[in-house]
């Protein structure tokens, strides 16, 4: 996938404070069309806070946000949606008692003379799920009848109805089985192939390795590394996450006599 020279979304110098805690100090992020950027970091590194800043749930205290090169302000969820940023939260937020079509269009139902246009919505839903190759038994079953992977797929498909340019996914594979994870990772690749910028938050480095083009590491609210997935090694990323060449992972390797402290220390600050 060819990258355009200008990022769709870029954030610089983002700061966010919750009382005494500085959740984000000086974070930055660039997202290009047609790439998957993974944000990784330890618990409390500021990943979710950064996502919430972009989604407009918790606006930033400081810093600048650029959308297609032009400065914008995102102060509420509506601002983000209006720009073309869709967010899929970890807890999915689907209504179990409503069918797949109803959930896809919840809050944005199509109407015809004031009455729900079920036919147009069902048609659009079938189309969308088919282009994403999402397999579900029927678009008219209640969401309660779907598996975890199918529910995640429905939640992601739902975010695409607004024709966004950037999709934020918060831990999309957490709590999924092996086959279901593969299903969701396939879907993420299809989003990228459609030219969307995908921001993926994940704890699972295997998933990140599988789909991400670029990895941004956050540590204590600051950027701690930006790696090209094609060249980065797992040790480099782990060191950036833990912030030290001397960490539990490297100590294990040192005991095995394979660690090379001298070369890895230099990459700690990022590229």
């Amino acid at each position, binding site marked *: 996938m060819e990258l355009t020279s200008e990022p769709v979304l870029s954030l610089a110098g983002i700061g966010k404070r919750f009382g005494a805690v500085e959740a984000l100090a000086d974070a930055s992020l660039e997202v290009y069309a047609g790439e998957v950027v993974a944000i990784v970091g330890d618990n409390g590194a500021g990943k979710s806070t950064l996502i919430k800043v972009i989604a407009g749930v918790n606006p930033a205290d400081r810093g600048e946000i650029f959308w297609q090169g032009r400065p914008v302000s995102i102060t509420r969820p509506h601002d983000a949606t209006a720009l073309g940023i869709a967010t899929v939260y970890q807890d999915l937020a689907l209504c179990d008692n409503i069918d797949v079509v*109803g959930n896809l269009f919840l809050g944005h139902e199509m109407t015809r003379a004031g009455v729900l246009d079920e036919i147009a919505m069902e048609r659009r839903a*079938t189309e969308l799920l*088919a282009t994403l190759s999402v*397999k579900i038994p029927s678009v008219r079953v209640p969401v309660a009848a779907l598996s975890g992977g199918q529910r995640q797929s429905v939640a992601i498909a739902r975010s695409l109805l607004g024709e966004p340019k950037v999709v934020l996914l918060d831990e999309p594979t957490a709590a999924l089985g092996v086959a279901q994870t593969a299903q969701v990772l396939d879907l993420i690749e299809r989003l990228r192939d459609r*030219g969307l910028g995908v921001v993926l938050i994940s704890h699972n480095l295997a998933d990140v390795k599988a789909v991400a083009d670029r990895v941004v590491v956050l540590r204590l609210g600051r950027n701690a590394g930006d790696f090209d997935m094609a060249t980065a090694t797992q040790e480099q990323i782990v060191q950036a996450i833990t912030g030290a060449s001397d960490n539990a992972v490297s100590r294990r390797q040192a005991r095995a006599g394979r660690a090379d402290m001298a070369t890895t220390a230099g990459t700690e600050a990022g590229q």
Partner: protein
Amino acid sequence: MSTSTTSDTAAEVRAAAIQRDPRLAGPPRTPGELAQAIWRRIRAGELGSWPVIIGLVVIAVVFQSLNDRFLSTENLYNLSLQIVASGAIATGIVLVLLLGEIDLSSGSVSGMTSAMLAVMTVRHDVPPALGLVAAIVLGAAVGALHGLIFARIGVPSFVVTLGGLLGWQGLQLWLLKPQGTINFPYDGLVAKIAHTNLDRVAGWLVAAVVVVAYVLAELLERRRRQAVALPARPVVSLAARVVVLTACVFGAVGILNAYAGVPIAVVIFVALVVGFDLILRKTRYGRSIFAVGGNIEAARRAGISVTGVRVSVFALSSTLAAVGGILFASRAYSVGQSSGGSDILLLAIAAAVIGGTSLFGGRGSTYSALLGSLVLGAIQSGMLLLSLDSSVRFMITAAVLVAAVVLDSLSRRGRRSSGRE
């Protein structure tokens, strides 16, 4: 989605729509397959209205064998009039139950608003039509107040409406002072509501219009679905629905016509049930009620105003309670201190639940108010015919209510084991 490939994707979609998962049972084509499909749904806990319909048949058979006046047209006519008031209140209760909340004030609100109607029209000579509108608006305002205290301040609906139960009854007693009972003139508009029947021909016409409208709507929907290659309702299932609807509507009108004609009050009640069902299933507002009842967080993130939905549903519940109160008052020609009191609230809640609306929120329909009221009304009417003591009547009604909730809980379990919850 790139725009250049839109026509290709449309073709793909049609292909995908045809390629069904082979593990899925196909749509029913013959009456036998239709029966099998219905049985599968029941096994999976999608009971729908079946328990109530079976219950009604059992009640009819039992009471008819004990007293052959039970299924007489006179008794059925009286039964139809007897259920309209509590049925209207139960319709409001259904809306509140869909949110997963409860409204304990409905009985008191029905009594208080009808007392207000009596005070205005009888004591102060307000024109009856204006009085009716004012009583209904008062109901809406009272409900909106409950809703605001619940949704804005966060007091549990149970407590807010329990306060309403006591408080509005107090206002009712105060309004009715000093006599305690106010009678409506026998020939006034208020009394006429429950004591006027449609002309027999008009009754048949209404039945015909209902059936024709249903058939037309279904055929139109079918044509639109086929035009865009979406799966349409199988012909056998459509035919079965039309036959059942025709039998129910013409059967009911036939029975009522055989005695005295269709009461206007019954038409009002059925129109409320059908109207609110259409609002629930066919409008964005109705969808938002199901969403709030299913998952509040999802509803909020979808941009639905949860507070707005809650306040409006409580307002509707009390509005329907006011309508129920007017129907009660009209049937009794009077409003007294006990109007809206005793077991009216409990029977309305019981009717909604017996009819199949879940106490757990998000599942149900206004038809459960109609069916549940029919079940309770039939039991009451049968027991009165047998001149059973009220002690026995209470116990039997309680047993039916508990049985209905047991069925609700069991069907929830069935849905879980079939992966539908």
